């Protein structure tokens, strides 16, 4: 089972790597992505655990490569693959890491299917450094996710971006753990009651 998932993950990565030439983000480097995809045992272990607990969900994952069809109300379903709506970032960086590409691609597929649905990308940073610079950094992060969504099929008219800088942390606290969770872009569907 483990190897199957690895293989699928690798397959998805290859598809992504092919598309990754399309987005304009100059900060992406393919070699680094290869490294992280190969060595990221954490993601593999997580997928394995979900498999044992919830077979249906894994099945969906396997049958849901890039252009997977979603039902319109999939964004209301907390067990849907679209429930994952947060992209995390490295310090002072707006490069989207490989492990979040599938999240972005699924939301792009959904937005491509339902062109009347709007999405709001909320960029955030951790608390360190200048507040106004962090507003700029959060904006750059939201823009990076926006470009990828568009590269994978969403249209620019569906996407609104906003940066909160460090002003709205997801987690209170002044340590690495909190900072890791606060450097993020949240994908919000305003019409589905997604607030914040």
């Amino acid at each position, binding site marked *: 089972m483990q190897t199957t998932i690895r293989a699928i993950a690798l397959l998805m990565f290859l598809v992504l790597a092919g598309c990754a030439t399309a987005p304009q983000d100059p900060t992406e480097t393919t070699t680094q992505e290869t490294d992280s995809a190969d060595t990221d045992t954490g993601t593999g272990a997580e997928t394995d655990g979900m498999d044992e607990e919830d077979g249906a969900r894994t099945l969906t994952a396997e049958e849901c490569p890039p252009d997977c069809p979603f039902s319109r109300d999939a964004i209301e379903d907390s067990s849907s693959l679209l429930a994952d709506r947060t992209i995390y970032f490295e310090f*002072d960086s707006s490069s989207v890491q490989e492990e979040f590409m599938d999240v972005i691609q699924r939301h792009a597929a959904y937005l491509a299917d339902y062109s009347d649905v709007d999405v709001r990308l909320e960029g955030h940073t951790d*608390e*360190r*450094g*200048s*507040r*106004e*610079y962090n*507003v*700029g*950094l959060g*904006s*750059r992060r939201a*823009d990076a996710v926006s470009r990828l969504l568009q590269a994978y099929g969403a249209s620019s008219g569906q996407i609104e*971006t*906003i*940066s*909160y*800088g460090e*002003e*709205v942390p997801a987690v*209170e606290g*002044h340590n690495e753990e909190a900072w890791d969770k606060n450097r993020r872009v949240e994908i919000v569907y305003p019409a589905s009651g997604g607030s914040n």
Partner: protein
Amino acid sequence: MQPSRMFHALAALALLALSTPAAAVLQIEITEGAAGARPIAVVPFGWAGEGDPPEDIAGVISNDLTRSGQFEPMNREDHVSQPTRADEVRFGNWRTLGVDHVVIGRVEPLSDGPGYNVRFQLFDVARREQVAGYSYEVGRNGVRSLAHEISDVVYEEITGERGAFSTRIAYVAVEGSGDQRRYTLQVSDYDGFNPRTILTSRDPVMSPAWGPDGERLAYVSFEEGRPAIYVQRVVSGKREKVSSRAGINGAPAWSPDGERLAVTLSYEGNPEIYVLDLARDETRRITRSGGIDTSPVWTPDGENLIFTSDRSGGPQIYSIPVDRSERARRLTFEGNYNADPDVSPDGERLTFVHRMQNGRFRIAVLDRGSELMRVVSEGQLDESPTFAPNGRMILFATDHGGRGVLGSVSTDGRAAARLSQSQGDVREPAWGPFRD
């Protein structure tokens, strides 16, 4: 001089009536005194009324003088005597203790209504003579403000420079977390006392900036779900939305003439600096780079903007002429993170956030003449430095016990203090201009 001081006390009372007091208890903790600074004794003021005196005036003056870094007030316990009248001052004793100046005073309730009569005298020990002496009448709520005015007199008589103790600051306070989070904009005395809430919001409030008249504040509010820049009159609370374009509307900074705001906007792509003419409602773009350009501040002559840009990689401080006659020039080269500058009133120093090699964020001061940079704060996450209107002190946001509090440091880095409130987080101080 006298009538204007009385007027100040009345103005303070008027402000009190118009706005809501915030229920936070403040504490000033001197974390570092300037050893070797001018020795002075501020003797506890005498009190001729019933019960407790209205305020420890000498304590307020002593804190003011210590925090400036220009004075080293003697501990009260070391005073050999506590005179409250001129004829009780024994100059020889003070001279033996190594004190250059002595401040004495006394407070009496007014016989014909609420309020007090406050007298103070400043003596030069070596010359054995009075340098200054005033008598004031003040309302019940004006005693603390009066203490700051006395500090200003003492400071100016001895240093020859204007004191900044009667000025005000604005800052952002945050209480609660998650959906309960509340952001407020506060205006208080320079030491954090007498806070008044002038804006409350469920959404972030950022980057307060005082107009040069000391009557208007520009700030960023997300209250409509997007950032917009507002200009609000402090006393009346009347306000106007001055920028709400697509994307970022941030980092307002007043021109010295009070007619324009330098701001950060991103509606044309990435964050750039613009100048907004308030009367004409016109914007003019100043910077052009692929990086983040933000946090502009005007040089005192109004000719240049100092700002943060990461056009060369990490954020650094740059300068550009407002008329764009020259390209932006980089001013900071030490370390890989320098951001959020403020310019001293004489234009000769910059203060900004500097990341140390150990990853700590601290406040640095750069002397533009010598190009020497000095780190003046000691925290882990220090930010948002703002110069006093006399350039002698810097106020900034710091972390203490897991909470955001305000720190103050003398510009030479010698004297430091912490202004801790009893609850919530405090951040983004903006020091207001002199009040005339």
